[in-house]
């Protein structure tokens, strides 16, 4: 009975944090870290509580993205692209129906695949070395073209800016880069402050400017009819839903990739799959297919992120690092064969995650009016609260004035981007992959003969290029590079590409 009670508490808490814009799973887990002592007597109980939080928060993050246009967390930023325009058109219930079905479908399916087959997944991740990670990141970067705007010039600005922001910090040899002498920037620009600045604050200020009465747009028609329409969309387009989940699942397996990459890859893939087909609504303007193509990726990614963490002790995403840290706090030896053979461990993970996924879906269906009540609070109260949460979240980094200064700078940039229709999703994707590409690029070169102490051409001439690009040695790397080049050329050449969600 304790397990059910704590799974329920975890589900409700995760849902609450998930609904708060910007606060995601990592924030939720950090806030319960201090509860670790309670679970020392029965760590499996703590595991159920944690995974229920992860599952419910992952779903609730999407609801916020759809209803308010402010990403519930970075991993659901792609849901904003079509979800929020749907809500603005009065189709919030339909969008919620899609989100609930997609999250539940992908959450449950991939949780079962993950936890019950956990011991078998080790072989996939071991295939990835530096070159393979580099290839995958190049593929992710190429997908930026799918979320850039139609204006090529503005798209290039967005991509270059995103890459530059991602490169801020230190080089792989610990030399300051793009810090402009500001020591604070040497640790890079964090995801939370970037999202707050690019999406959160500009939307709030825009709301003030337009004197919004409510953060959630009004809904047309009966709520349950809208939900049913959303369920129908999912049934009709189940392939897009499954594809999104699968992409999220694979992305979550790769250490450090996680985050927004899976969602945007899924979104890009959905758009590519419907190329040339007549759409009810264009992508980026409230297309239900666009929403269901990426919505479930987040849930699948969350669950698959647990695989490298459980198998190798390698966190695939920040929240997975928190789960690992809490598990280690519980005294569980994450990454050991003994733990994988512990049925209580895998069963606790599976129970918590599936309970959280289904629980939050039911809560969302039957408590939707309460969610809306929260969102119907006059905008300035809601926005003041959100602003406080955003500032508080960003102040958690160092607690110093620099946190506020960076938030202010990025918010100003976010407002400029919004005003001039510079694609903020493109900035986000470029930012996510920039540092990783740099890191894997140099790592790959070093492995294949680049000697950093040699200057000039000699260092490059030493690289064993033929070994590196040999398809028999590195099939994953070569295939990823070919796909990346193809995607990039396609996205640049075709003029009808691009999403006008900017």
């Amino acid at each position, binding site marked *: 009975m304790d397990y059910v009670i704590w799974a329920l508490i975890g589900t409700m808490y995760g849902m609450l944090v998930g609904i708060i814009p910007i606060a995601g799973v990592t924030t939720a887990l*950090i806030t319960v870290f*201090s509860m*670790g*002592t309670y679970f020392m007597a029965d760590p499996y109980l703590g595991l159920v509580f944690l995974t229920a939080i992860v599952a419910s928060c992952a779903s609730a993050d999407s609801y916020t993205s759809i209803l308010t246009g402010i990403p519930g967390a970075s991993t659901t930023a792609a849901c904003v692209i079509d979800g929020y325009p749907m809500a603005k058109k009065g189709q919030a219930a339909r969008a919620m129906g899609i989100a609930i079905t997609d999250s539940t479908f992908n959450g449950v399916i991939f949780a079962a695949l993950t936890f019950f087959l956990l011991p078998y997944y080790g072989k996939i991740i*071991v*295939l*990835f*070395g*530096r070159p393979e990670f580099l290839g995958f990141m190049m593929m992710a970067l190429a997908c930026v073209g799918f979320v850039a705007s139609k204006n090529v010039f503005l798209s290039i600005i967005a991509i270059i800016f995103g890459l530059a922001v991602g490169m801020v*910090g*230190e*080089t*792989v*040899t*610990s*030399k*300051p880069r793009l810090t402009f002498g500001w*020591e*604070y920037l*040497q*640790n890079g620009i964090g995801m939370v402050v970037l999202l707050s600045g690019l999406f959160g604050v500009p939307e709030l200020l825009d709301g*003030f400017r337009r004197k919004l009465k409510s953060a959630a747009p009004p809904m047309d028609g009966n709520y349950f009819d809208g939900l049913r329409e959303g369920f129908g969309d999912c049934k009709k387009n189940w392939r897009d839903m499954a594809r999104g989940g699968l992409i999220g699942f694979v992305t979550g397996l790769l*250490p*450090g990739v996680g985050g927004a990459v899976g969602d945007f890859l899924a979104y890009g893939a959905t758009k590519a799959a419907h190329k040339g087909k007549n759409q009810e609504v264009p992508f980026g303007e409230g297309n239900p297919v666009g929403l269901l193509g990426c919505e479930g990726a987040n849930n699948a990614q969350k669950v698959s992120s647990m695989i*490298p963490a459980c198998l*190798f*002790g*390698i*966190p695939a995403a*920040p929240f997975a*690092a928190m789960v*690992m*840290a809490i598990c*280690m*706090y519980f*005294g569980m*030896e*994450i*990454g*050991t*064969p003994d733990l994988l053979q512990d049925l209580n461990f895998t069963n606790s993970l599976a129970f918590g995650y599936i309970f959280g996924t289904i629980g939050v879906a039911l809560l969302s269906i039957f408590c939707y009016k309460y969610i809306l009540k929260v969102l119907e609070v006059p905008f*300035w109260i809601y*926005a*003041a*609260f959100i*602003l*406080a*949460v955003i*500032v508080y979240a960003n*102040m958690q*980094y*160092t*607690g*110093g004035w620099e946190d506020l200064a960076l938030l202010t700078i990025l918010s100003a940039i976010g407002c400029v981007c919004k005003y001039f229709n510079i694609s903020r999703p493109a900035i986000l994707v470029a930012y996510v992959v920039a540092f990783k590409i740099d*890191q894997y690029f140099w*790592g790959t070169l*070093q*492995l294949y003969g680049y000697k*950093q*102490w040699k200057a000039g051409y000699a260092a490059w001439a030493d690289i064993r290029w033929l070994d590196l690009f040999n398809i028999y040695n590195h099939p994953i790397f070569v295939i990823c590079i070919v796909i990346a080049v193809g995607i990039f050329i396609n996205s640049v050449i075709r003029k009808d590409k691009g999403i006008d969600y900017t």
Partner: protein
Amino acid sequence: MIKKLLLGAVASIFMVSSALADYTLIVPQAPGKGTSVWGEIIAKNLEKFIGEPVVVRHIPGARDIPGFNKFHKSLRFDDKTIMVAHGGNGVSYLLDKIDYNYFDYELMGSMNNDIVLGKQAGKDEKSGTWTIAGGSGFEPDAAAAAMLVCGPQGNNTIDEYLACWRERFVWVNGVSGGEKRLGFKNGEFDVARESPAAWKRFYTGIPGNELWFTHGILDLENNVQIADPNFPNTQFEDVYEKLWGEAPKGDLYNAYKLTRNWRDAIQKSLWVNKGNPNAAKVKAAVTAMINDPVASKEIYAKTGVYPWIQDGPALLKALKSLITEKALKDAVKWNQEAYGFPSIYKPELLK
């Protein structure tokens, strides 16, 4: 609109200020990282013995330096602020441009820790190329690996070891701990590096790897490095002598000893400002925490069972004795030329 924005700002200030509590542990890392987790465990347990709330404040930054700098410049003057430092801070003290200075603080307690190195099973030191991954700062372990693979050189100068390093090693820097672990498991890297607790957690009983060597731990009473009781017969000096028939010596060895002890002996440590009126109270609480079986069990679950050092002056004296002009300059040269990291020679450390 301005009034509404002001309301938001006031709410923000309230939320931030409400997070402030009595004793604060300053951790120079983001939540979830190794020292952060250790800091959380310490905060929770210390609270019981200090009798007042203890909270953790994270001040992350490049190579975990900005948090410690901030402690030095301003936070240390708060009588209820305690700095949580780790081994990387010790190495940065020797090689990086930093503001903090251990000699301005009082040691409340330091875990005298060790590092474990593994290698691919059967890999022969005397032949072939070795691929080794590093993070973002000086790694004494890689220097030790270089000595084991290269063996005695003509005059054992740093230049001779650098020449051997360039010939026998492939160095990949900027690799995180988790990626190193994966790279070792898929054979991309030949060497694994872990804390003792992580080694037991991730590598014990897994085929394909073998424990190569450990640094050992500092015997403060006699000021010598001794074998780690958790990993007997694995200390670097012993492994080297067994392999090459003589004890390690020379420039790189001295640079290794310097950086090894400045990192491992203060691997996880707690400091307050010199003259802090609460120092005795905090130190007594730390002592009580160390002696408490429940608290120590939780701490050792994270770090492995290692002795604490609370005699700050003796520890700093022992560490200071390792600083010589030659060792310092050689450590700087090795860091720059073998690893490619920026570092500076600081003559003021010799004073």
